């Protein structure tokens, strides 16, 4: 097999073809890259937009008041940290996300576990959840403000509404994907329903449950910003909104970039946790 393919590629071997082959290899369908090549492409993917941004800014195509340059944004971020209470904005936002997300998780996990394991629970929960899930969480804001006021509870409630219903459905799906053979193996060893739930289904689904958490935590951040823009007087989202009022475009940029970074860091932390908790997924 190898010998014959080698022959075919050796026969017509003009110089151009050999030069082309490197990029061909990179762009072959489902191809592979070394770690270094991957990093090169990734850095390019981040740098090129920043350079374009700097270029548009320098060329003054768009007025500076609407498009500040990278340096302006960096400076602004510096003064935000030093004089404008960045730490306070960050900590209150992190606090809200944490409480809202955990509240959602604590209730959604048992419900998802039940809905993914027992048919009556599935029938009872899923159609109803599916219905609510299609109502945009943002549309609940007026109601939430009426009910919970403008205090902390309303932000947490919006994060909860934005994540909870999806979470139950996704957890249920994760649980349903536990191979039937594992469950039946435990049944033939005399496992009771409770034992199978806790000693087979839960550990078997654990990796995908954590992945679901990682995905929904990202959504929690989205709804946090929504809540802070609509009804708050502190936090990162509020800082962005206030910056708009004072036409501080550079601070809007800084706020968006910070929120992006927070998401990225949190995602990487959860990936690392996944890696550490489930070593058996790595194979040989």
């Amino acid at each position, binding site marked *: 097999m190898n010998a014959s393919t080698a022959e075919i590629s050796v026969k017509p071997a003009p110089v151009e073809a050999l030069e082309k082959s490197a990029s061909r290899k990179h762009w072959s369908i489902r191809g592979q890259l070394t770690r270094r090549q991957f990093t090169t492409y990734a850095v390019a993917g981040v740098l090129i937009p920043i350079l374009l941004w700097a270029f548009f800014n320098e060329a003054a195509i768009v007025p500076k008041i609407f498009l500040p340059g990278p340096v302006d944004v960096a400076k602004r971020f510096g003064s935000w940290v030093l004089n404008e209470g960045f730490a306070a904005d960050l900590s209150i936002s992190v606090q809200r996300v944490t409480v809202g997300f955990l509240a959602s998780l604590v209730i959604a996990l048992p419900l998802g576990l039940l809905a993914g394991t027992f048919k009556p629970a599935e029938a009872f929960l899923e159609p109803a959840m599916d219905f609510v899930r299609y109502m945009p969480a943002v549309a609940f804001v007026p109601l939430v403000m009426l009910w919970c006021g403008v205090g902390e509870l309303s932000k947490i409630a919006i994060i909860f509404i934005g994540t909870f219903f999806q979470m139950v459905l996704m957890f249920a799906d994760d649980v349903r994907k536990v*191979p039937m*053979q*594992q469950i*039946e*193996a*435990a*049944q*033939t*060893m*005399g*496992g*009771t329903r409770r*034992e199978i739930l806790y*000693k*087979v289904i839960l*550990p*078997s689904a*654990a990796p995908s449950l954590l992945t679901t958490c990682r995905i929904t935590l990202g959504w929690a951040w989205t709804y946090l910003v929504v809540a802070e823009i609509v009804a708050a007087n502190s936090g990162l989202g509020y800082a962005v909104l206030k910056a708009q009022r004072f036409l501080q475009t550079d601070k809007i940029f800084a706020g968006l970039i910070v929120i992006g970074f927070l998401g990225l860091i949190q995602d990487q932390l959860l990936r690392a946790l996944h890696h550490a908790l*489930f*070593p*058996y*997924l*790595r*194979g*040989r």
Partner: protein
Amino acid sequence: MTKSIEISRLFKSFAGKRHSTLVLENVSLAIPAGEFLTIVGASGCGKSTLLRIIAGLEAADSGVILVGGKPINGPGVDRAVVFQDYSLFPWLTAKQNVLFSRRLAANTHDNLALERGAEEERAQKLISLVGLSAAEDAYPSQLSGGMRQRIAIARALMSKPAIILMDEPFGALDAQTREVMQDLVLSVVAQEGTTILFVTHDVEEALYLGSRVVLMSPHPGRIDTIYDVPLPKTRNVMMRVDPRFLTLKRQVMERVRETVGLSLDRSALGSTGAEASARPNS
């Protein structure tokens, strides 16, 4: 320790959207304690369903199954099952998988519990019996398909079941690994003396392992013929080419083909008998 299985007048059908399909029709079979019985047949003959009913994983529509003289009621620790694949717990090491049944309340009051602390020892003994001592701390994802099935067998033996039900356990393995595993099962069984019901679609496997071979015919699943294998109880590789073995193999293979042809004739597929018998049995 071993128990007999008596199956009488078993019927089972699966409900479909419009009409239900009969999978087992009036199946009766007696398996004495300690026998190695294999069931072979074309797909759709209900052999796996029969095994699952005996395991208690599915319920029959009617009929009686006695294990050790007592009617079964759902799955039980006296009947261990070895599945085709994916039944090991991926988050546990090989040894933890073998020891898993010890974590369940149902297994704490059996004969092993009398010698608490001997569990670890027995798990190690079983793992070495299936030749995997070096890999006892590996996760299933680090093992080959054959190694995983060895662990599944060791796990099934752990709680000293009276009966082991094997549902095409080597169906996903390559031909060479399969033969090694067949000899392994024979030697393990010789040591443990358990009653074995082994389901396969491979005629040679059925004849090489079983002291009797039950041939089932498909649509609906029925017992067609029961063959006695005219070989000594301890088998070895050379028996695969023994003339008596080969004659019986040919006879069984022909009969399997005929049963497939029969069912095709019966069903209104519009196929002629010639076409039907020319079809390869899958």
